[in-house]
């Protein structure tokens, strides 16, 4: 049933498929290379390390992507049915060995190199004098708590939680350490000083994500997860929740304010105003 007709149809299909593959590769490479869409510049050391690892991965994948997609384009055009007999081959063990070894080195190497950016933020403990902030999330707000002048967080009591009366975290009114705690809906931190966040949730799982920090962490009820960073650029950055948390998920939003030391002292002194 393979006639002359199917051979000419074969040329048209081969040409179209090869062309589409080439267009797809060119457009994809252009948009990734020209960085038409990219996150804003990182404002931390770790953020830059993440970007470096991202770029390295982009190079490795780009080479494999371009070679294999153009390989498909070439093969469908070059080996289309034009009346020839197929070249009989069951495979080639040398080639199997070469590409298996090459991908093991490439992919595992990439994975191991990626350790650095991860380890700095997650394995290394923060400095002892890092600014301490508690992040408590609930449907659908962020609350940030600072220990106040005494440097101590007050005890929490779930029974005293009442967002409407200004005690969203349920700070125990009987604990003197809690009297000077500052609870605010946005995160203010001093520039160039290490900050340690203690992330948790009151109800369902949420998340805290700041693109410029290249950092995100789920807020899990029952767990307090510490993460730390040092922001190097004064400015205001958006905080979002990336973990599906209910009907108001997409409106759960706050700001990270990175301020000068003087402004930070003023912020603390005014009790978070």
């Amino acid at each position: 049933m393979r006639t002359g007709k199917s051979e000419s149809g074969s040329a048209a299909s081969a040409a179209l498929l090869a062309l589409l593959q080439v267009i797809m590769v060119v457009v994809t490479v252009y948009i990734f290379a020209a960085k038409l869409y990219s996150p804003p510049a990182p404002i931390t050391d770790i953020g830059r390390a993440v970007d470096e690892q991202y770029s390295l991965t982009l190079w490795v994948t780009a080479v494999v992507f371009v070679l294999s997609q153009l390989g498909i384009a070439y093969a469908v055009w070059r080996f289309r049915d034009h009346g020839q007999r197929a070249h009989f081959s069951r495979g080639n063990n040398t080639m199997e060995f070469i590409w298996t070894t090459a991908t093991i080195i490439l992919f595992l190497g990439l994975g191991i190199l990626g350790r650095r950016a991860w380890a700095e933020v997650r394995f290394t403990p923060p400095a002892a004098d890092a600014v301490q902030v508690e992040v408590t999330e609930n449907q659908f707000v962020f609350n940030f708590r600072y220990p106040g002048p005494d440097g101590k967080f007050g005890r929490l009591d779930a029974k005293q939680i009442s967002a409407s009366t200004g005690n969203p975290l349920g700070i125990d009114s009987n604990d003197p350490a809690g009297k000077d705690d500052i609870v605010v809906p946005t995160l203010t931190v001093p520039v160039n000083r290490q900050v340690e966040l203690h992330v948790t949730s009151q109800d369902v799982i949420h998340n805290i994500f700041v693109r410029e920090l290249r950092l995100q962490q789920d807020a899990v009820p029952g767990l307090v997860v510490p993460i730390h960073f040092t922001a190097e650029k004064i400015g205001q950055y958006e905080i979002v929740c990336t973990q599906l948390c209910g009907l108001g998920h997409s409106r759960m939003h706050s700001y990270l304010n990175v301020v000068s030391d003087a402004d930070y002292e003023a912020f603390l002194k005014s009790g978070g105003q």
Partner: protein
Amino acid sequence: MSSHAHGAHAAHAMEAPTGFIRKYIFSVDHKVIGIQYFLLALTAVLVGIVLSVLMRLHLVWPNMHLPFVPGGLMTQEQYLSLVTMHGTIMVFFVLTTAPQGGFGNYFLPIQIGAPDMAFPRLNMLSFWVTFLAFIAILAAFVVPGGAPISGWTGYTPLSGLGEVTGPGEGWGQTMWIISISLFCLASLLGALNFIATLIDMRAPGMSLFRMPLTCWGWFVTAILGLLAFGVLLAGGILLLLDRSAGTSFFIPGGLVVNDQIQHHSGGSPLLWQHLFWFFGHPEVYIAILPGMGVASHVLSTFARKPVFGYRAMAMAMCAIGFLGFMVWGHHMFVSGMSPYSGFAFSVLTMSIGVPSAIKTFNWLGTLWGGKIQFTTPMLFAIGFVSLFVSGGLSGLFLAQPAVDNLLHATYYVVAHFHLVMGVAAIFGIFAATYFWFPKMFGRMMNEPLGKVHFWFTFVGAYCIFMPMHWVGIAGGIRRYADASAVAYLQPLQPVHQFMSIAAFITAAAQILFLINFFWSLKSGPKASKNPWNATTLEWITDSPPPHDNFGGHFPSVYRGPYDFSVPGVKEDFVPQNLTPQEVTREKE
């Protein structure tokens, strides 16, 4: 494999049922059950596509009045319920059901030369329990409170506390759990049946390394199913107990929702994630491994060449299945899991790229030097490889926890898994449909219409999902009902509009497939036994095959599955059942 087993089965299989109900509804014939699974998946995919079109409409025109949406204007919770139901229906009732339950059921016994599955009644039970599961998930739309909003991953405590956490988290979430648990049960039974059939019922001469790669795909998938579905079933039961019996497997103490203290204590939300992903990651391979088998099978047939590196291909599937159980933690890098575990999961995940790459190179090797015939199934098989490469490579970014700090829960993830396990698997299903339709229904599908369907779907898939990566890199967050609250999401809206329009065109192009399918069913030209000049056992029997598959005569196998263009042989294909003496040599 013994002749005794064959005799017993043949005797049973000879009695073809005559009544309509025993023949088409409660049938024990694997071919009828395969078609039942296929039609269930076809129904499910239509529902899933409608849901995705509604979502894409809402994302770009949030103030538009929509059909099927109570009230016309979509609310936040309605959007999230569509997210949940689209994911659940597509992953379970399409990507798991069609490739394995549908084509696996129909063709595994025929390709190994068996008259039926090892346990025909169990097979029937598997299908009908899957059907019940589908009814249960559809019921979630109409129960009080509507469909659940916790995503196809159903993370607790959102899914564990009842309607206090949101609309749809009452009855809707309960129906979701019941549906998933039933589905797990059915898939477990199905997996047992596949494994027993493949081990015990192969024709004489059909050694494991003479099986078509499709059978390897279904075999590894069945093993994954056997080990993975039981874990999700357990998770589902525990979650149901948390919701209805007051237990606290997944819910910690001291929770306050809406100023109400919850009376739970001692549970762990991360435990659910571990159980879910211990199933959920192998599930990705459950969806794609049969497609890999089909792609290899179809590429070889229409390149008129043996599969390049057949053994490497079979072993790569086993490696993917094995490693697939050790990478679930890469879904949980930022979950609060130990960062040391995160690093271990990362390296294991990078290593699963190796067998995936081996497969890609061997597919290219199969095309290389071939005589490529661009039939519709071949186009979809080549499309499968292209999409698998594109979607697979973006996985190398997500496998690294450091980079995941930037990309986690963004549209980058959505783009990645849609390409690699969604669209690629769908291309595998389309390749299988166009390839085996003549065998299943005795008629050919329309080739020109099939090709137009392919071009639209191939271009459309890339136009939807390649730009989605860019949205993700820029920080576009998934599962957001609207982008208005976050300033940096606004510049991404034009890309969303482009993707939505591409999605509408691609969805509309699927009508071409439906027309082709149903028109050909009635009016396609009659198919011969072997219209593609293929080599495996399904092509030596009638189209469609008789009730016992081979008409009382069971084949023996004398060669591997892909003897195409063998030097010195007159025809460019040698069926597996031909004895060396029966092969026509070229005249010197």
